[in-house]
Structure formats: structure tokens, C-alpha cells
């Protein structure tokens, strides 16, 4: 990063807006994109995948956004590290597996990466957003605004659960 230059942030969101609360990722991403911050690049996909490792290489700070089927809080921020072993999940990677791919492919440490997960309950094809997910979206949006008020890894860590 050049001294004095704005911190380049990449926001990677995953989800499917036709599958109920799976839409949380793209919905929050749309709000972040609407902030219009020049140094923030937004990336959307149905699922996190190996090529997203390349997006990390162009950033000083990264934020993953996704629905979470198994958490209590409406929105939760945590810093993530590379998974210890190669991805074994499915066609989709978890964010820590994306970092693991980055380490293998780029032979370098990834920038500080954070995960903003939003609680979801229903993921059926054709379903709309649940009441719980609406609450998660607002909680996530409030948190995201605080993050982008000061895009700095140390400040972001103070918001981690």
C-alpha cells in the first residue's frame, strides 16, 4: 500500500436472491456499494470460489459477507485466518478456504480478512426474506456503516465478536 493512499477494501458477498434468506449477502452488498466509496470494490457471486482468492491480492483489507444458517446473533463480525488444509467442502468454499487457496496460489499472506455473517433461517427456492433475516440485514447494515466509517483492520477488530 502506498503511504497516504486510501485503504483498498474488497467486499465479497455470496448468496442467491431466489432462495429466501440466502439473499442477505447480495442485499447488504448493494447497500455498501451505494455508499459510493472509491476505494471499496464490491464482488458478488452465488458462492465463494477459488477465483475470489485473486480478488484478495488487489486489496489491503477484505470483508466477506454471507448468510449464516447456524448463528444466534443477527449479525456477527469476526477476523478469519486461512484454513489449515485444502478445501473439502463442496463446489462452494468457505471464506477461510478462499484464504487457504490464496496462500497456495499467491505464495503470500492475504490481507486482513473479516467475515460479516448474517443470521438466516429459511433457504427454500422461491422463498422471500424471513422476519429474522430482515432484522439481520438491518443489524448488518448498521455494523457495516461503522466499518466503512473507518476502514482499518485494527478498528475493525474492536467490532469483532
Amino acid at each position, binding site marked *: 500500500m502506498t503511504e497516504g493512499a486510501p485503504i483498498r477494501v474488497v467486499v465479497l458477498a455470496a448468496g442467491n436472491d431466489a432462495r429466501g434468506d440466502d439473499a442477505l449477502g447480495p442485499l447488504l452488498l448493494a447497500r455498501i456499494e451505494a455508499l459510493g466509496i472509491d476505494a471499496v470494490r464490491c464482488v458478488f457471486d452465488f458462492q465463494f470460489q477459488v477465483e475470489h482468492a485473486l480478488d484478495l491480492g488487489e486489496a489491503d483489507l477484505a470483508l466477506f459477507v454471507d448468510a449464516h444458517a447456524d448463528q444466534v446473533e443477527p449479525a456477527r463480525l469476526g477476523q478469519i485466518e486461512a484454513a489449515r488444509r485444502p478445501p473439502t467442502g463442496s463446489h*462452494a468454499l468457505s471464506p477461510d478456504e478462499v484464504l487457504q487457496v490464496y496462500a497456495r496460489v499467491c505464495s503470500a499472506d492475504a490481507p486482513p480478512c473479516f467475515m460479516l455473517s448474517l443470521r438466516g433461517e429459511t433457504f427454500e427456492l422461491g422463498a422471500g426474506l424471513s422476519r429474522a433475516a430482515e432484522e439481520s440485514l438491518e443489524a448488518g447494515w448498521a455494523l457495516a456503516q461503522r466499518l466503512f466509517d473507518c476502514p482499518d483492520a485494527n478498528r475493525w477488530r474492536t467490532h469483532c465478536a
Partner: protein
Amino acid sequence: MSFELETAPNRENLRRVAIDPVSRVEGHGKVTLLLDEAGHIHEARLHIVEFRGFEAFIRGRPYWEVPVMVQRLCGICPVSHHLAAAKALDRVVGAVPVTATADKMRRLMHYGQILQSHALHFFHLSSPDLLFGFGSPVGQRNIVGVARAHPDVAKQGVLLRKFGQEVIRATAGKRIHGTAAVPGGINRHLDAADRDLLAAEVDQMVAWSQGAVALVRRLHEADPALYDQFGHFESGLLSLVRDDGAMDLYDGHLRLRDAAGTILRDDVADQEYLSLITEEVRAWSYMKFPYVTELGPQAGWYKVGPLARVQNCDFIPSPLAEAERKAFIDYTGGAIQHAPLAFHWARMIEMLHAAEVIREMLPDPDLVAGERMADGVRTGEGVGIIEAPRGTLIHHYGVGDDDLVSMCNLIVSTTHNNQAMNHAVRAVARKYLDGRELTEGLLNHIEVAIRAFDPCLSCATHALGKMPLIVELHDAGGAVVDRLSRD
């Protein structure tokens, strides 16, 4: 009607092992094994435990929305659904054939999808199995040696996939939720700047694809006992082929070969697929079991996908891939290869073909100029068939006078392979698990066999926390006596 090991006669007295869900394949798949006290397998099934409801999602929508909307069915192969739907609805608007520009833009998009999907599967989903072994110690030593000789495999896989995604973005308008293919044609040309960027990289993609074919071929040659026998079963082969018998992944007629390689049905027009295929429902799985109607469910099941396509066509119309197809055929002296691990070899031959097709197409002036739309006499029904990365994909729609979809039938690639995957699971269970103490490593053999088909089991639900691998061992009364889990 039931196959060997499909349903045990004395189920209540057996132990039950569940692999739920199957890792490294998409969605809600589950394998259950029923064993007696001595550990002998009496039943093995691959279940689909989620009702997908695609047809209900689509019925009642305006037909022109469908090619965009169906991309939301599957986060793995949205382009295939996009194009199959557009092809079906070309019939409804009477646009047969579409213009040269529309045909070529769609083909380019499709081969970009094939390239990126096959790259992901081989380099990142299967390479841990193939390069580091999953059973035989001797095989593992050979394979590790190959891996050491190819340290750039992971990076090449990412960049090949990225290139394929860029082809999709350049042709579909967006990489996600593309809108380019519409009933009757295409709504954009290829931008010349995008064409030039892709052209600058495509030679490298062809070279890496050649390297991938060579790698998987060497794996076969290094351990033929494993690669030729693991999960082996025989079945018919179904795919599209071009009118002259060439491999064509975008369009053509249906061809069926039997397990020995004899062509049983040929020249079946896409609009006539119902004259060939019947779908059977079984109580224990949400996924149907298609079979060739005239052969019946016991003999008429088949496999689709790369292993079927490479052996069903008469030739591949690109020189490097055709040379590799011939080597593939020569490997068995012309006999049909049925072993599931041969899917990987065939898949890489197709990836090379896709890279060659993209290279050949990019300079075509019809991509950057020319008529985009065609029309004709409006009809009420259309079928679109495409060879998606995982195999034959069928979209069939009826459209009312009110322009709303009144009927919808989708047969996705993984459904075609349902019976074949079950046979692979049973073959592996019989050979590797029967009478032995079950370990996670042995259970992984089951998953390796399933992964060879690259199935897409639920399409697009992926939220965090939804897909840990859980293996549970139940006693005869159904109580959990052992459990393994990994995130």
C-alpha cells in the same frame, strides 16, 4: 423393480451408516449403508434429501423472464440453465434457427462455462483425491510423485477458471445473472476490447489444458489397477452429438450407445426426447431415475457427462482434443471405459476442447457484428437440450396464449446419472467396505466415486454452517453408536 444392494430384505436387523451430506459435491446428498453384525453390506443408497421444486418455481412466469430466472436454480452452472431455457423458448417464438451471431455468442458463452467448471472440478475438487491418494499405499506413492512434478497445478486451475468466467462475462454481459441469451437470439455483441483481451490469453489456456490432460493420463498409466477398476460398473451412454457425429456440447441430436459401444438410438431430435426417456420415481429419493423407455428401468439406465460424451461421439472437431480422444480410446484398445475415475480424464479432454473452441471462435466477425434476433411463427411449446458440464440438460416448457409458462419439465445432468451414481456407490461398498471395520478413509472411497460424476445435488444453497460432513454409525435399533464430523 430393484437392483442388487438397493433394498435389503431384512432391513430392521441391520446397522446403518449415514454419510450426510456428501462432501465436495453440491447440496443435500446422503449415502446410507446397511450392514449386518459381521460388517457385510446389504444395502447402499445415494439419496437426495431435498425436494427442489424447480418446476413450481418457474410455472406461471412470463416466458421471456425464464432464461434469466433459471440461473437462480443453480449457483454452479447458471449459464447452462440460461442457455437451455433460451434454446427451448426459441421454439416458442419461432426463431429456428437463430442468427449466426446469436448461435456463436451462445456457443462461446457455453464453452467458457465448460472450461471454468471443468477446471474447478479437476484442479480443486478432485486433485486432493487424485494427487494424494485415497487408499492404495502403492498408488499413493506414485501419485505423490506426480504431484511433486506439478507444483503449479493449483494456480493454473484458478487462472483457467478465471479465464472461463471472463468469457462468460464478455458474452453474457455479467458473470452472474447474465441477460444476453433471450428467446429468439442474443441481446448484445462481443465487445472488441473484450475479444482482444481474451485472445491475448487463450494460447496459455490451451497449453495449460493440454498439461492437465497429460497429467490425468499419467495418473491412469501409473496405477491402472486402481483407475480402471475403482467403482467399475457398465451402463449405456447418452449425449448430444452433431449431425455428422462430432462432439457438440451446445446443440445436436441425442445418441444412445449400449455398454459395449453399439449405437442403439441415433438422430433423436431434441424435441422428441420424451419418445426416448421415462423418469421413474422411487420412494426413498427425491431425485427421479430416468431410463430409456424401450429398454425398461432395469436395463435402460445410462450415464451422461464427459465419460459418455467422449466415447459417444465419432470425433472431436478440434485437433488437440481429438488426438487426446484417440489416446483415450487406444488405452483400452477400443473398448468402452466405464470406470468412474475415467470421468476425470474425459473431463480434461473436454476442457482442452473448450479452450480450442474458444481460440478458434474469437476472431469470428459474427461475434462483434451482425443480426442478433430472429423470429417466426409463435408456438406453445419448446424443448432445449444442452450438454452442461455435468451432462445432458433438458428444459421443456409449455407457454399459454397469455405468455405465461403453463408447463415445465427439467431433467438436469445429475438426475440422468442418478442410477449410475448409485451403482458406483454399490460397487465401491462391495469391494472396499464389505466385511471391514469402517473408517473415515474407507468412507471417503464412497465420496470419491460420487465426486467423479461431479454431481450438483441441490443447486445454489450454500450458506455458512449448512454443509459439514457427518458420518454416523447406527445400531440395529437406530441409535447412534459412533459419529465423525468435520467442518
